[in-house]
């Protein structure tokens, strides 16, 4: 009888010890986990704030870059043309005052000035189009890029080989197409300004029917990526492109080798909504179908 009582007592004691051990473990885990959760939340808030600040900084940098571009275009192209037109008008008026010019010659000169003014107007239109986000979403990404390519060929002595899959035009939301276009502009701008390249290759394609691929490569002087990212000022354009890609969920790849050239590749997985966009908005135009 005493043995049995001892057995029961031993079981109760050991059982209680096990239960205490278990409860202690669970309580400790709950406590530590809650502490970690609070810490994690704080970290997330800090990260979000840092991210917002970065976005603001990038937006500011982009704004500055756009203003610089406008200023550059106004100065280089428009100002010179307008000065030339103004001086021509003043020369014509002087000649008219002194009656050194015939009516026929005046008509001829005015026609030439009118043509010059048309060039200025066209320049303003092109600049306006390339800067307007609405325009990009109106015409579509591919057409905007094609337009930009034409403009570059016209303005710069550089060979551009483009291989563009037209069907990729219909898959994007406004934000996506604007951001992709800005990345394209930024990379082309970098090539023209720094790469000393003679040839640019542009590839736009749909990979596996669900990844939009934009690949821009050049045969320029290239650069050392790690050195470029160390230099914060020099890396602003690159980080801007990276962040824009990140914001739309695209994969940004950059491969640059000194004296060989640079390859920039953006891969954007097409979401279900993008596919729905195709069905809803562009069904009649679509040349592309999903199975």
């Amino acid at each position, binding site marked *: 009888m005493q043995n049995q009582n001892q*057995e*029961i007592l031993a079981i109760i004691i050991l059982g209680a010890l096990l239960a205490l051990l278990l409860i202690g*473990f669970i309580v400790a885990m709950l406590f530590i986990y809650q502490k970690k959760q609070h810490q994690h939340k704080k970290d997330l808030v800090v990260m979000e704030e840092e991210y917002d600040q970065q976005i603001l900084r990038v937006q500011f940098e982009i704004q500055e870059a756009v203003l610089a571009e406008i200023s550059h275009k106004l100065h280089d192209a428009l100002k010179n043309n307008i000065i030339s037109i103004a001086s021509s008008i003043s020369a014509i008026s002087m000649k008219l005052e002194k009656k050194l010019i015939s009516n026929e010659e005046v008509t001829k000169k005015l026609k030439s000035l009118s043509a010059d003014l048309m060039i200025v107007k066209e320049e303003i239109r092109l600049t306006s189009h390339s800067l307007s986000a609405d325009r990009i979403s109106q015409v579509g990404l591919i057409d905007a890029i094609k337009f930009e390519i034409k403009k570059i060929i016209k303005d710069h002595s550089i060979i551009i080989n483009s291989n563009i899959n037209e069907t990729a035009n219909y898959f994007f939301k406004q934000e996506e197409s604007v951001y992709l276009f800005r990345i394209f502009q930024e990379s082309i701008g970098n090539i023209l300004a720094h790469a000393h390249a003679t040839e640019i290759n542009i590839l736009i394609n749909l990979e596996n029917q669900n990844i939009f691929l934009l690949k821009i490569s050049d045969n320029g002087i290239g650069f050392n990526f790690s050195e470029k990212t160390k230099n914060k000022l020099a890396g602003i354009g690159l980080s801007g492109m990276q962040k824009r890609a990140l914001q739309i969920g695209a994969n940004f790849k950059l491969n640059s080798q000194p004296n060989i050239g640079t390859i920039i590749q953006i891969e954007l997985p097409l979401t279900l909504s993008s596919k729905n966009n195709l069905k809803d908005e562009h069904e009649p135009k679509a040349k592309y179908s999903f199975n």
Partner: protein
Amino acid sequence: MNISFYKYYSILLIVTSIIGLFNSKKIQINIQINFISYFLIYLFLIEFIGDKLSQKSIPNVWLYNYSSIVEFAFYSWIIIRILPLKKSKNKLKKIVLIYCLIALINIIFFQGKTGFHSITFALGSILIITLCIYYFYQLLLFPNEEKLITQPNFWICTALLFSFTCSFPIFCLNNFYAHKISQNIWPIISSISNIINIIFCLLLIVAFVCRIKIKKFLPSLS
């Protein structure tokens, strides 16, 4: 007096399994709860067959030897499945596979010929304990928004960690110091082992019901 915790454990296995199956259909929770529920039925069947063999004085060690390998493989697989990070999952799966092979070799060619595979059983317990600790480590490293007490995975791992941590010394005692222990102690050890199994089932029940939201029915004011 011989307290029959074993009977309660067997009943609890079936009850836990039913609760698991019922709740996995009622509310959308992790798929592993379904697997565990079916596995508990398997455990019940093993216990039932083992008991019947024992009653007929037929050796049942071989049954427990092989079923314990399945048990270790299943629990390891469940823990690997619920690990928050995908990193190192494949390596862990390979380690579990290697363990299963070693345990099988031990059962077929060495210890299993004469009795219980105590060495590979101890190794298996250590494997499960390590995996559970690794799960808790990852959980603390990357906490999510959800409360811990409403996470079935936490309770499943707690159940496994508790069960294998507590039963590990008992099995060591059973297999390595059996000859030194007085015969009076064996019923206590057996009862403790069954208590651990009962607590294991209770923790699994908590895992199955922790996501259920209790609706408060308030009288309409209109």
